[in-house]
Structure formats: C-alpha cells, structure tokens
C-alpha cells in the first residue's frame, strides 16, 4: 500500500489558509499599532498633557506611595475573603427561603423577599455608612467596634442580596422534572433541594457568582469611609499630602492585578460549561 500523501488540492488549500491567516494577523498587528500610536499621540499632544503626566504618572510618587497602598491592600484582601464566605452562606439561605412554598413559613419567605428588595436597592456605600456609624451609635453590648468588621457586615448584607438572586435564578433554572423525579423516588423536599436541585443550580451560577465577587473585591475600597486605612485611603492620604494623583494610579493597578485573574477564571469556567453542554 502506498503511503498516504496529501493531494495537491489539499496542499494548495493549506497554503491558501496559511497565507490568509498570516495576512489577517499582520493586518490585526498593524491596525493595533496604528491605534495605539494614534491614542498615545492624541493624549500626549493635548495641551494639558505635561501637567497630567506630572500629576498622574510621577514615578517618584508611585514608589513612595506603593508600600503604604500595598499594606492597605492587605486589609482589602482580608475583608473580601471573609465576606465572600459569609455572602455565599447568606445568599444561599435567602434564596432557599424564597423558594419555600409551605403557607406556615410565609413570614420567612416575606422576610427574605424584603431583605433582597432593600439591600439590592440601597447603594452599597450607603449600607456601609449606615452600618458603620449606625450600629456603634446604638452603644449596645456585643456590637463590634472594629471598623473592618463593621465593613464586612455591611458588604455581606449588600452583596448577600445580589448573590441570593443569583442562586434563586440558578435554582429556578433546574427543570421541574428533576424535582418531580426526586420526589417520586421518595426524597423529602429538603433532600431534593440538597442532593438534586442545589448542586445543579450552583454549577450553573458559578460564572455570575464569580462576577459578583470581582465586583465585591473592588467595593472593599468603600469601607474606607468608616475609618480603616485600606488601599484607597492610603492612596488618598498620599495624594492629599502631596497634591499629586499618582498614588491613586498605584491603587488602581493593584486592584486590577487582583481582579484580572478572577475575571479570566470566570471566563474559563463559563467556556467549560458551554463545552460540556455541547454547544
């Protein structure tokens, strides 16, 4: 048997494909370069550029502020790691509570609905303000005085409402036949939820959940309003000392460096889900 060789037509086809790929790659590169050059030229030739470069891109100020901003950022990380766990718990509980159909538990359902309505409606920064200054004003025993803790409570309340809605959407997306099948196997409502519905729902909502967490990571900066020295506040203090805005840029960069991996992970998981469904 003679060895398989590509037909002339196939060789030609591949050649054309390669040359087309090369061509589109070089066009993409060229247009990107032109685009960057135009934007850079547009910005640097604007009349205010020298002043903007001085106040936003001052290397010395960047280096001076970075250690403090990084130190503040450790607090941001602590805040969001703790709140993320609490938010998952609260969000799932509230979503489940909204799904209860037993009449006797109506108050719980109503309370869960009220909670999501209120905390999704109120801007996060307001929740932080009200919790951060309102709770300590009660001067009750056992109310935390630590500002980061108050911030975690506020963020958990606010994001718990969003995440509850994400979970609810996931739970409702599980086909009713799944519930019917589980019930007909003799599983109780609780077991149906635990072994059949929630696992499927959770898998479906992982990308939107991660998206909410990216958002949460940024919003830890809002906790600055109630006192603690987190990254944004550290940057702000440098800026107010020197009247130079570069420290803000340092803070922005650190936040981006943290949220980009998270965003890529979200993309990756979404793509994997699509592949698994055979789309």
């Amino acid at each position, binding site marked *: 048997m003679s060895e398989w060789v590509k037909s002339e037509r196939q060789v030609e086809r591949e050649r054309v494909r390669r040359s087309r790929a090369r061509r589109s790659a070089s066009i993409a590169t060229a247009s990107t370069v032109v685009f960057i050059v135009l934007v850079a030229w547009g910005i640097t030739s604007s009349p205010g550029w020298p002043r903007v470069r001085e106040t936003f891109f001052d290397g010395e100020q960047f280096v001076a502020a970075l250690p403090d901003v990084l130190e503040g950022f450790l607090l941001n990380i602590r805040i969001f790691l703790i709140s993320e766990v609490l938010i998952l718990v609260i969000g799932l509980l509230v979503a489940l509570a909204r799904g209860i159909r037993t009449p006797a538990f109506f108050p719980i359902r109503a309370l869960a609905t009220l909670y999501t309505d209120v905390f999704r409606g109120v801007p996060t920064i307001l929740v932080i303000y009200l919790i951060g200054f309102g709770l*300590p*004003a009660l001067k009750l025993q056992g109310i935390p005085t630590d500002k980061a803790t108050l911030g975690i409570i506020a963020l958990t309340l606010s994001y718990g409402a969003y995440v509850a809605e994400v979970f609810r959407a996931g739970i409702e997306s599980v086909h009713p036949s799944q519930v019917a099948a589980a019930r007909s196997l003799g599983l109780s409502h609780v077991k149906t939820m635990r072994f059949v519905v929630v696992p499927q729902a959770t898998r479906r909502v992982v990308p939107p959940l991660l998206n909410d967490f990216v958002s949460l990571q940024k919003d830890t900066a809002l906790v600055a*309003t109630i006192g603690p*020295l987190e990254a944004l506040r550290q940057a702000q203090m440098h800026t107010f000392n*020197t009247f130079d805005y570069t420290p803000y840029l340092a803070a922005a960069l650190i936040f981006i460096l943290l949220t980009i991996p998270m965003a890529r992970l979200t993309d990756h998981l979404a793509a994997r889900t699509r592949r698994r469904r055979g789309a």
Partner: protein
Amino acid sequence: MSLLTPGKLTIGTDKPAFEPWFKDDDPSNGQGFESAVAFAVAGELGFDRSEVQWSTVKFDAAFAPGDKQFDFDINQVSITPQRAEAVDFSKGYYTVKQAVVVSEKGKFAGANSLAELKDAKIGVQVGTTSFNAVRDVIQPADDPDVFNDQIDVVTALKNDQVDAVVVDLPTAFYVTAAQVENSKIVGQFSSTGGTPEEFGLVMEKGSALKSCVDKAVDALKSKGELAKIEQQWLGSAAGAPELR
C-alpha cells in the same frame, strides 16, 4: 488681570462650609473667619462685595489638573512645600495649631501630655495635616482612623468609636461648644515642632494673581485687619493648654 469670569472675583470653597470658618454653610454672607478673610482680600484687590462670587470646590478638586473653577480657593489648606509643587499658595493668613478633643467621660479625659495619648484610638479627617501630626508627634500605638469629613470625625467621637479626635484648634472649640456634648479639649500642640503651620489661599500653579493676592494678605496683616477678623471669629480659640 486674568479672571475666571471677567469683572468678577471667583472664590472657591468646599461644601458644607463649617463653623467657625463659615457661618450657616453660606460663604457669601461674609460671616465666619474664612468668609471674612476672603472678602477682605477681595477688597484689597479692589473688588466690591457684589463683584465676588463663590463656587463650590471639593477639597481634592482644588488641586486637580485642568481648568480651575476659582480665582483662589479658601478651605483651611495648610501650606506645605510638597503641596506647593502642585499649586500656588498665597502667604499664610492664619497660623494653626492642632488640638486634641476627648469625651469627658472617656479614659483619656485626664490626659495632660502627649505621652498619655499613646494608647488612644484617634480619629482625624482625611486631607488634613492632622493625620501627620498625630503620627509624627503623638505616635500612637494604633494608626489613626481616617474619615471623609468633619461630621464623620465628630460622629465617631460621639459613638465612642474613637477615644480622641485631632482637629485644628478653632474647629476643636466649635466641636466642644456645639457639636459633641460632654467633650473637652485636652490641649493643643504644634504639628511640626519647627516651622509654624499656616493656612494659605490656593491658586493655580503659575497663577498671575499670586503676587497681587500676596500683597493683599501682607497689607491686611500690617494694617491689623487680619488680627481683627481673627479676634472676631476665632476669639475664643485661645488659651488651650499646650501639650508636650
């Protein structure tokens, strides 16, 4: 002379404008120390009261690059060499000292030296020189809490979220007299130790107005006008014990 609005002198300050620097949150009424100083400077520059207009400028907008919404800004801004690289300051119109306010019932009510405040949780307002003063002079064990504005600083003191707050002395008198019941000033201290800290009017870097404004401030000083305004609006702000 190039002005923001021809024929008018536009003066910026933040909102809300606090006592004793302004009165009734209305800079244009000429009442309160900084309002009075602003109108006096305007008068020296040859502007009638009706030719002065006020514009609301957030603290950080006063030094942001780009077009300024004021000819000069008056907002208790302390003159520092670093800040002077980004904006022009007039000559100082007020020498300021930092003061420590505590709750009368708190455990620091009896403090009479800086060393006794080392263990206190202290609150300051962001953007003020108070933070540096606390860190450099008091050197407390914990970093101070930093709040967005004066109201939040005061609220934190009321709520016992902080043991003490550090503000400039005139503000301290206002806090104890009008804002927080059962609070008291334990004393004042110099923030730098060396050169006295002064408030200056803020102008755009390279402002053509600077030399005129400097002359106006000097004239008000030599005529005793500044001292008179200070006596009228900040008169009570004297005689707090010196903390060392």
